[in-house]
């Protein structure tokens, strides 16, 4: 009896006990489904995280931001002038020329044009942001040195801002938009960024933005001369450590040793990414493992019951010349047929569920269809079948034919 006919025979047995088999197959189905779904959710989560990590500047980027000072040092906060353009100048002096230093001010302002308004993030920046945060200008130009020095009222728009403020195909460059009631001339439009996942664009945050010169933002809009970010991008990852040391030293001196700044590399973010991912794999794997264990118990239970009912059949088969090994493989094949059925159905239901959830769930929370998850789920179900069938099949193969034939 080969494996295929064994499995076919097993499917026949499953069909003969429909309800009982259905319940067991349901166990396996749910186990495999939870495995595939959990993996799908995890993959979806990590995929978006990874893309956004790369698009936020990759490994070469070092981001500096303000930090709350500890209680002990609070009286000295006034000594520091906080993140300011002076820090940028100091960093430029200390770092090599090919390093980008990008001072950024986040503004919450309203953009308006002819009755249309658009409320999104507007950043005061220098041209360094294009390299540091990976932006490209598709149309028009970047800021000129003169515009930066003179705090000019010029603006570079992301495609989402263009879409919301302008009619389709209307000229954009040279037009004016209002920012807090002040007219700004559009000098450039950024590239459109798209990384679609279903209907959701992971990179839409790069389109929902507008840039004005950092000097304009500080002098005319913000008023408090504080930078939100002071990001640095090195050219080589090897120089990351040295560059970070330099930045910390320069900032410490600039801020008169007041600890009100924080310098982070994406490497640290990547580390925490890997760490979180590993935690999720263990956690999700554990949960899926438990559900598969449950389905294994279900299979073993069914097999034991089935063998108990078929003692006589085993006796007959042995009398007709079946060896212990024949009987063993017959029942293993049955267990595998059960779990394979559950596995196939489980993967199928999971595909359906993932597709449905991609429609239903808000962007960023959607699971992904992942081939490895299907293979994993299916392999696990077959493995569980073999393991769960082992003991009952061994019991069956050891039955004494005389006792088995006498069994009523």
């Amino acid at each position, binding site marked *: 009896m080969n494996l295929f006919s064994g499995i076919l025979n097993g499917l*026949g047995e499953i069909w003969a006990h429909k309800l009982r088999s259905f319940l067991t197959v349901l166990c396996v189905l749910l186990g495999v489904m939870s495995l595939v779904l959990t993996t799908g959710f995890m993959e979806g989560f990590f995929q978006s995280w990874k893309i956004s990590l790369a698009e936020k500047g990759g490994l070469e980027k070092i981001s500096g931001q303000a930090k709350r000072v500890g209680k002990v040092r609070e009286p000295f906060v006034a000594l520091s002038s906080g993140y300011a353009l002076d820090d940028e100048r100091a960093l430029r002096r200390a770092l090599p020329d090919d390093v980008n230093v990008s001072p950024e001010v986040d503004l919450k302002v309203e953009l308006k044009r002819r009755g249309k308004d658009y409320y999104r993030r507007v950043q005061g920046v220098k041209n360094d942001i294009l390299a540091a945060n990976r932006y490209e200008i598709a149309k028009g130009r970047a800021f000129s040195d003169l515009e930066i020095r003179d705090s000019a009222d010029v603006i570079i728009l992301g495609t989402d801002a263009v879409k919301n403020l302008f009619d389709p195909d209307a000229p954009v460059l040279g037009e004016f938009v209002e920012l807090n009631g002040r007219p700004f001339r559009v000098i450039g439009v950024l590239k459109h960024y798209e990384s679609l996942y279903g209907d959701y664009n992971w990179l839409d945050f790069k389109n929902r933005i507008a840039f004005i010169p950092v000097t304009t933002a500080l002098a005319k809009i913000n008023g408090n001369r504080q930078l939100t970010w002071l990001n640095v991008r090195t050219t080589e990852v090897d120089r990351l450590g040295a560059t970070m040391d330099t930045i910390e030293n320069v900032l410490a001196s600039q801020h008169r040793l007041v600890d009100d700044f924080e310098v982070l590399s994406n490497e640290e973010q990547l580390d925490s990414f890997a760490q979180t991912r590993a935690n999720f794999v263990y956690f999700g794997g554990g949960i899926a493992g438990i559900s598969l264990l449950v389905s294994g118990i279900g299979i073993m239970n069914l097999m034991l019951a089935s063998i108990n009912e078929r003692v006589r059949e085993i006796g*007959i088969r042995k009398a007709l010349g079946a060896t212990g090994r024949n009987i063993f493989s017959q029942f293993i094949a049955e267990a595998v047929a059960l779990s394979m059925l559950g596995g196939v159905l489980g993967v199928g239901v999971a595909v359906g569920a993932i597709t449905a959830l991609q429609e239903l769930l808000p962007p960023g929370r959607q699971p992904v269809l992942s081939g490895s998850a299907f293979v994993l789920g299916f392999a696990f179900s077959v493995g569980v079948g073999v393991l769960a069938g082992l003991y009952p099949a061994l019991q069956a193969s050891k039955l004494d034919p005389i006792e088995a034939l006498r069994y009523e």
Partner: protein
Amino acid sequence: MSDAPEVVRFERVAKRYPMGDSVVDALVDASFTIREGEFVSILGPSGSGKSTLMHLVGFLDSPTEGEIFFEGRPLASISPDQRACIRAEKIGFVFQAFNLLPRMDVRANTRLPLTYHPVPPINAAARVDRALELVDMMPRADHRPGQLSGGQRQRVAIARALVNEPRILLADEPTGNLDSRTAGTILDLFTELNRQGRTIVLVTHDANVAARSRRQIHVMDGRIIRDA
């Protein structure tokens, strides 16, 4: 006694079962030879040890003492897996309770021993058909055992026992569950099979049934009391 080749030989065979603290002698000092072409019945009341004898002849059990030879080979030298092979290849079983598998049709039931045949014959389907024709069950080949009468089921069981073209056919009370008229036709079938040259061992408690065979081994309290 003819000088046809021997199929099964018992030499001072004994079988004892532990039963609680005591030991039950199911078979004591049994010696006989069954040769090719014989139609032997083993006759005795229930509990006399005839089923034990049958299990020993069919290799389902091993003796406590003595030696059993199959085609001249001592049973003790044959591994359990090889015994299973011999059962699949050379022995046909017919049971009192028919013992067909209820979820398989007649054809599949008949084919069952070939599944365990060491070298499954290429012409397995033809063999199944021939066996079914021999017992006149071809018209019912696609029925399930539940759709058949007792006599028909026993015919299928006989076809199943014949499908591997065995050296010896063992029948354990084959008419025990049948009415006398059906039993008669089944026994006619055995007689006919023997006439065609099959070696048959028939176990029964019924002297009328045993009378059909040419040789009768009487068993009583685990001992062979008459062999004629």
